[in-house]
């Protein structure tokens, strides 16, 4: 892999916990401004993979580069830590646990601006309002503590907070999985609009193949820590090459679906 490829280049990523290999030689590329879905079931290593990208876990092997800059090692100092934060941000799955219960919505976005920008208090305040309105939150929500908000509203706050850093890449770790389906569509809509306007890249971690169809241009499929299939979304979903991908697709409920069809595929894979 050359060091100067544009975008995010993950090469041979590996993570072990004791005897268990959680992520085993995973490589992929995310072109600037594009959207890549990381698909897998529990134990597939999809969450561990993205946690290594943002530095919440240390890889045991492999490299993560953004525009040729390596970010696999521990940051050496404050400015390196901050510049990495400006590259990749993350939205977590559980909207009920991803906000500090003691910090108001506006405070939560404002503190990010204080850390990452040189805006003065007035400029910060107007930027907070701007970010919140971008995700569809108003004055009333701004002064509220998280416990007064619904799950969907909290997830909007988490998105606004991540966008405040103006990252190049946003990782969404099952970010709509815990939401009601009508709210899920709102958030997907919002995410699509944000990407259109800002050219941010998405790494969309999900177990839900139906969502993948509507949010990602490319998809990689993980199974037990290994990458089993990668390609353009439509190709992978319409003409899967790996039996596991086919099994996943056969398992998605829809009208006229026969769940028994998935069973032989699963047995064949062990």
């Amino acid at each position, binding site marked *: 892999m050359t060091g100067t490829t544009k975008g995010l280049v993950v090469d041979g990523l590996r993570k072990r916990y004791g005897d268990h290999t959680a992520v085993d030689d995973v490589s992929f590329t995310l072109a600037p401004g594009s959207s890549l879905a990381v698909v897998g*079931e529990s134990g597939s290593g999809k969450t561990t993979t993205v946690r290594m990208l943002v530095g919440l876990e240390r890889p045991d092997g492999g490299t993560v580069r953004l525009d040729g800059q390596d970010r696999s090692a521990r940051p050496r100092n404050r400015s390196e830590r901050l510049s990495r934060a400006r590259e990749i941000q993350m939205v977590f799955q559980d909207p009920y646990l991803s906000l500090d219960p003691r910090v108001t919505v506006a405070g939560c976005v404002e503190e990010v601006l204080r850390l990452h920008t040189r805006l003065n208090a007035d400029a910060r305040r107007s930027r907070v309002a701007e970010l919140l309105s971008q995700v569809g939150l108003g004055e009333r929500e701004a002064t509220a503590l998280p416990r007064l908000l619904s799950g969907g509203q909290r997830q909007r706050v988490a998105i606004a907070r991540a966008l405040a850093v103006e990252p190049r890449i946003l990782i969404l770790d099952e970010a709509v999985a815990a939401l009601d389906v009508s709210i899920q569509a709102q958030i997907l809509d919002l995410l699509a609009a944000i990407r259109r306007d800002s050219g941010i890249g998405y790494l969309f971690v999900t177990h839900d*193949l139906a969502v993948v169809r509507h949010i990602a241009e490319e998809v990689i499929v993980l199974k037990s820590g290994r990458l089993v299939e990668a390609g353009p979304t439509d190709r992978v979903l319409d003409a899967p090459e790996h039996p596991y991908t086919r099994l996943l697709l056969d398992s*998605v*409920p*829809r009208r006229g679906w026969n*769940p028994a069809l998935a069973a032989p595929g699963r047995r064949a894979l062990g």
Partner: protein
Amino acid sequence: MTQDSPQVRSTGDGFPVLDIDGLGVRLPDGQAARPILDGVSLRVQPGETVGLVGESGSGKSVACRSVLGLLPAGARTSGTVRVAGRDVLTMNRTELAALRARQVAMVFQDPRAAVNPLRRVGDFVTEGLRASGMPAAAATTRAEALLDAVGIRDPRGALRRFPHQFSGGMLQRVVIAAALASEPALLVADEPTTALDVTTQAEIIAILTRLRAEQGTGLLFVTHDLELASAICDRVYVMYAGRIVETRGTDELFDRPRHPYTSGLLACTPRIEPGAPTPRPIPGRPVSLAEAPPGCAFAARCAHAQPRCSEETPVLARYGDGLTACHRADEGITL
């Protein structure tokens, strides 16, 4: 609030295994009682699979738990919940225990919360059989056959193991085996696969539908997942803010929804088929009955709402082969 609403002529004939009529539930919450359900009517015929679909706050879980007499502490009810003709709401403790041992079984979302972690799986599966008077040896034999039927390898060994030695999907199979052990007339499944991986979900659903068909059990399947309901149910009830807003046969519900909420749900559910349209969100958020304004609870989120919608609560009325609670259902609006 009890109201007689016309019932759907359903596919099965004869006595329904479950007949909920005008069920209202209110919770005491300080001084003001908080309503949860209002006039819920629902039927399951023998051998029929009925879906109960709704988002959070819709009251679908409370409605399905009422079938086993599991209501929140201090809840006040109106209406009736008849299982095989007898009203569950007026049963005493002994009658409820007999009901749960013989007639109705329930499968919950989290199998770990449903089994006692300190007791062997064998005790759990045979519990219901023993309670209905089966000798120990016969119950064990039956339990082995059931575990085999739900696809657990080495059923004899499994009976001696503890719940923590099983994965979530395997444990849910055990729970289903236990639920079907006493050949209940009705199985209530409350989001039984929501916590499971998609491939495991497919297997559990395959097992559930096969055993249900073999035993002729009526199934009330509660889910938030419209696609899943469309795949396995004969008929679907859609709930919103503590009320049933629409019910009809699955095909007609999905092809020609008459309630704007149903069609909104269909439009916002991401579909996997090639060329499927982008999910179209419904504005606002789902509310519970306690938060709902007067009139139609969905009016504030509805693109077709008129002034009348926020004044008068629409009642369920017959349109096509089912019922819809919408003032404009007869106008033939293209939803």
